[in-house]
């Protein structure tokens, strides 16, 4: 299990390729990557991501450990950035490996649902005419109930 919380960009293709290449005995690898979307109609200058140093790593580790307990998985990888990001930049990624595809998909979706609402990150959209904290969506909270 590898967890990285960093300001620097990461190379999604290189990370995904290296992760898949080292999964001996696993039949399935799933990746997710989140990308900064521009606002409707454009104008996003930056997406600023604040986090809680110290707690962030612990919270992600707890989420990933639970995923590894619940499903028959091999390795898990989580990378999450903080700081200012431009539209089109990658915010984060997860990768999961498992003998069978259902476990790899379930573990990846579980990781994403909990990273979204239970890891201490906060997003702020900075546009030409001001900045706004992104509000948590009810559907993201609801998504936790399926697990």
């Amino acid at each position: 299990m590898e967890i990285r919380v960093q300001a620097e960009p990461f190379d999604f293709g290189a990370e995904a390729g290296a992760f898949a290449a080292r999964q001996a005995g696993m039949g399935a690898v799933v990746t997710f990557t989140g990308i900064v979307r521009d606002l409707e109609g454009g104008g996003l200058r930056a997406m600023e991501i604040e986090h809680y140093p110290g707690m962030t790593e612990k919270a992600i580790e707890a989420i990933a450990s639970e995923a590894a307990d619940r499903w028959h998985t091999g390795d898990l990888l989580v990378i999450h950035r903080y700081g200012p990001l431009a539209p089109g930049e990658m915010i984060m990624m997860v990768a999961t490996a498992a003998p069978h595809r259902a476990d790899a998909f379930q573990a990846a979706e579980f990781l994403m649902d909990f990273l979204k609402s239970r890891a201490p990150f906060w997003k702020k959209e900075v546009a030409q005419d001001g900045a706004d904290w992104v509000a948590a969506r009810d559907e993201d909270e609801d998504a936790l109930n399926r697990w």
Partner: protein
Amino acid sequence: MDVLYFAWVRERIGHPKDCIETPPGTVRELVEDLCSREERYAAAFADLSALRVAVDQQLSDFDAPLDGVREVAFFPPMTGG
């Protein structure tokens, strides 16, 4: 005990951190103490249902006791991923 603020809680209060010499019994009492200090705390804590609290870096709730606690943090619902 350190009290940390993140995102718009930090912005409304105007700084990221307070140090409390003698913590009260629970998180809720801590909030009441802070609100009685200054209007900007009262503004930040006006709607507790819009806030989350972590006690020693674990998600917790407003009834959690503070005995032996080193760090409390207040923040809005998280928006990671």
